[in-house]
């Protein structure tokens, strides 16, 4: 398998910093004023310690088929199998916030500063998703009129072992992401997947598959609203 030549993108941390209101909503910070100083502190730490970097490489449907099938462990009804052949363009991505933000979170927990550590962790997780949105926007810009959506191994019947073929193809190691035998990436705040550009109606995954019974995140419906 020949690696594609992906493009490296770097974003200033402030660009992927999640909206404060998103964290307040997601974490149910009813008395937001109580948490404001901590949120401000977490934002400062985020800006100082994260290094959002992405790798995006366009690939053909044939190349993607090999990535998608991975080690042959996908669910028979994995919805992406029906979606990607209808796409007009596909790009693999790997995105990371770098190792320092995770060490920072860890040391906050170690020093019993766990409220701040927890808020910083939530912030970083949301920032990863925001970075994916940025990559998706940039990709969508090249394909005006098409809708772009990100899909990731480990979600919705696409087995996580496809990380192996994805790594072979796009080599996220070049931006410092490594993959272990259990398909866990280091740094922790990293994410991979495929950007699928095509007509809006090809997108979207709805619950109802046999594998949905095990799913706790049910992000399919939320994600539909993020189609670029």
């Amino acid at each position, binding site marked *: 398998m020949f690696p594609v030549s992906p493009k490296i993108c770097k974003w200033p941390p402030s660009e992927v910093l999640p909206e404060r209101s998103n964290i307040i909503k997601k*974490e*149910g*910070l*009813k008395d937001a004023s*109580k*948490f404001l100083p901590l949120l401000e502190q977490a934002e400062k730490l985020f800006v100082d310690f994260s290094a959002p970097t992405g790798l995006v490489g366009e690939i053909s449907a044939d190349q993607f088929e090999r990535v998608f099938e991975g080690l042959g462990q996908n669910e028979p009804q994995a919805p992406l199998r029906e979606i990607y052949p209808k796409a007009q363009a596909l790009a693999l991505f790997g995105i990371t916030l770098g190792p320092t933000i995770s060490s920072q*979170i*860890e040391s906050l*927990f170690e020093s*019993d*500063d*766990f*409220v701040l*550590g*927890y*808020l910083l*962790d939530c912030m970083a997780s949301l920032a990863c998703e925001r970075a994916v949105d940025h990559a998706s926007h940039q990709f969508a810009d090249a394909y005006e009129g098409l809708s772009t959506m990100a899909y990731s191994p*480990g979600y919705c019947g696409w087995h*996580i*072992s496809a990380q192996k073929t994805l790594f072979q193809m796009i080599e996220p190691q070049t931006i410092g992401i490594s993959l*272990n*035998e*259990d*398909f*866990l990436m*280091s740094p*922790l705040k990293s994410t991979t997947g495929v950007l699928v550009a095509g007509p809006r109606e090809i997108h979207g995954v709805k619950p109802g598959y046999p594998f949905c019974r*095990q799913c*706790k*995140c049910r992000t399919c419906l939320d994600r539909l609203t993020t189609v670029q």
Partner: protein
Amino acid sequence: MELLTQISEALQQGNEELVHQGTQQAIAEKIPPKKILDDGLIAGMNAIGERFGRHEVFLPDVLMAAKAMVKGMEPLKPLLIRDDVPSLGKVVIGTVQGDLHDIGKNLVGIMLKGAGFEVVDLGKSVSPEKFIDAAVNENAEIIGMSALLTTTMSVMKKVTELRKQKNLQGKIKIVVGGAPVTKEFATEIGADGYAFDAANSVACVKQLMGHA
């Protein structure tokens, strides 16, 4: 309001300073350390844990309370050690081999400590042998394991098997949790308990220890 109730209330509001002051005052008033712990600090943590279970408050509120508890424990801990006050039980906890995600495990540890358990944190990427050896050496009643991915959660089964091989089922209970872990999976691998989140993990461990 009675002093210990005040400590419990301040703790639920996450007011570190008040909890610290209140605990010091209670010590000065010669209230037995175990009573300060049980009726002040742990009572506050239990109350906020229950409110979390009823979705009246969210995790950051619970963590604020736990942080206040740490502050209250500062003057109290040496006295509890002096009086040889036993904990509710001992739990060794860790993230399974191959896995580095430890926030969930940390939160469970914080909540268990807040509820009065002694927690030995084995850290991340802990091998099955290390879980069992640590539980035996520490004389722990419970092993708690956490995982982020379906691929790493398979290590949990190795721990339940190793426990069986070593004939330790009657002595050590196993609880599992983490984003991809389900109750069905816990049952399937022979674990004794599963909890969806940190607050439920306290109820689960209490039940296994017969404190429910």
